[in-house]
């Protein structure tokens, strides 16, 4: 049986050695973040719990909407963006909730916070994993939406993808921070959407306006460009705030 080596050098590591650190601190940051992203994605893909529940939930909402609005009507064109993004944020809440909730199961959060990984890298890692999952769920939602409501989304696909990318990052950033914030609360599943949705409203407005226009066939130009700027500004500002506040949220 192997026994513990007597000196650090036998193990072959010096923790975060000085040379490694100064050579590429940003690289190290992203390596650590991506380790966490990979862990979250691997965990989720193995069980597919949140993924399946989210996709099923989006489909249910889409069906429910068909009773609230006449699927064939003119009206639908005007509210298509709104419907789609409502589906995205409702289904997304499930994934975001689990993000930090899954760390509580065996006291894993303590192990992560006490490790050398900075809390900002922990945040980025988890946010990227959530982003991937949310984009996947939204893509399925988009396809289902086009199918059930006869909406053509291929025409302006790339701008639409850009709007989804920016809007989803807004949802991810706020959702991940608040997932960490609400992790110890009893009514976590209720508190998370209650806190996140009002904060998201500017980004949602922008995403909905752009999406409705794109689905109706209007490209992004002139008047609409301001909404792209709103999305980008929202994303940049709140990513910065989230990175700055992560230590405060996680350390009691």
């Amino acid at each position, binding site marked *: 049986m*192997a026994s513990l080596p007597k000196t650090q050098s036998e193990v072959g*590591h010096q923790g975060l050695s000085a040379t490694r650190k100064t050579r590429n601190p940003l690289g190290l940051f992203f390596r650590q973040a991506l380790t966490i992203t990979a862990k979250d994605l691997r965990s989720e893909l193995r069980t597919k719990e949140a993924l399946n529940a989210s996709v099923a939930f989006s489909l249910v909402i889409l069906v429910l909407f068909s009773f609230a609005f006449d699927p064939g009507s003119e009206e639908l064109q005007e509210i298509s963006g709104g419907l789609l993004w409502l589906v995205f944020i409702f289904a997304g809440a499930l994934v975001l909730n689990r993000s930090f909730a899954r760390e509580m199961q065996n006291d894993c959060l*303590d192990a992560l916070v*006490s490790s050398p990984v900075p809390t900002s890298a922990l945040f980025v890692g988890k946010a990227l994993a959530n982003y991937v999952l949310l984009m996947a769920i939204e893509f399925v939602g988009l396809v289902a939406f086009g199918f059930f409501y006869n909406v053509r989304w291929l025409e302006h696909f790339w701008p639409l993808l850009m709007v989804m990318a920016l809007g989803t990052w807004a949802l991810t950033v706020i959702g991940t921070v608040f997932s960490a914030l609400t992790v110890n609360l009893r009514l976590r599943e209720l508190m998370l959407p209650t806190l996140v949705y009002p904060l998201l409203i500017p980004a949602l407005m922008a995403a909905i306006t752009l999406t409705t226009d794109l689905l109706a066939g209007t490209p992004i130009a002139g008047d609409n460009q301001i909404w792209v700027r709103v999305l980008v500004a929202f994303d940049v500002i709140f990513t910065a705030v989230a990175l700055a506040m992560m230590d405060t949220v996680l*350390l009691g």
Partner: protein
Amino acid sequence: MNALEIEGVWKYYGDFPALRDINFSITPGSTVALLGRNGAGKTTLLRIIAGLSKPTQGKVRIQGSDARAEETRSRIGILGHGISLYDELSATENLVLFGKLYGLDEPRKRAHQLLERTGLDRVRDGLVREFSRGMRQRLAVARAFLHDPEVLLFDEPFTALDDRAIAVLQSLLAEAHAAGRTIVMSTHQLREALELATHVALIRRGQIAYAGERLQQMVDDTGWLYRTYGEG
């Protein structure tokens, strides 16, 4: 340089002082048994030392650096009440993950070493959720020793361990001690802890009631310490 220096640490939860003016230091290579009643403040103190919690006042220095500094965090190993392992990942995947987070050069090799050491080699690709309780505990111990930490912080490590896990833990602790590592463990299991300990600290209502070397009297009569300095 002391392995651990705690200076004037206070921890308030609201207006309630959970820790009051804690001052003590630990020389490198000691094994400290942290004793005290439930609610006395052992877990609070350990969490502060581990960098999981910030003291309201005061400083904690581990090998001269702040507890939250990155180089410090790579040199401490913790074992809390939960096993800190992911159920949906395999034993190897769990250890490799933590190996990478701690910056080990060859995380997979090291993981295999420790799996062998804790007797989990045969189930190394099994998912943790399928493990028995004892296996999970042994894996948790493996994770704590994975990066060969210089300072080990264990919160009631012997509680709820089965015999095999206790044996593994005791032998790893003995090796770590022989290698000059510093160990702090809070415990209720007086006998096991006092046998391994070189020093003892007793916490009473958030304050250090006794901190010093382990005396033979403590081992012979495990109630003596509590009677003399504590609650009786």
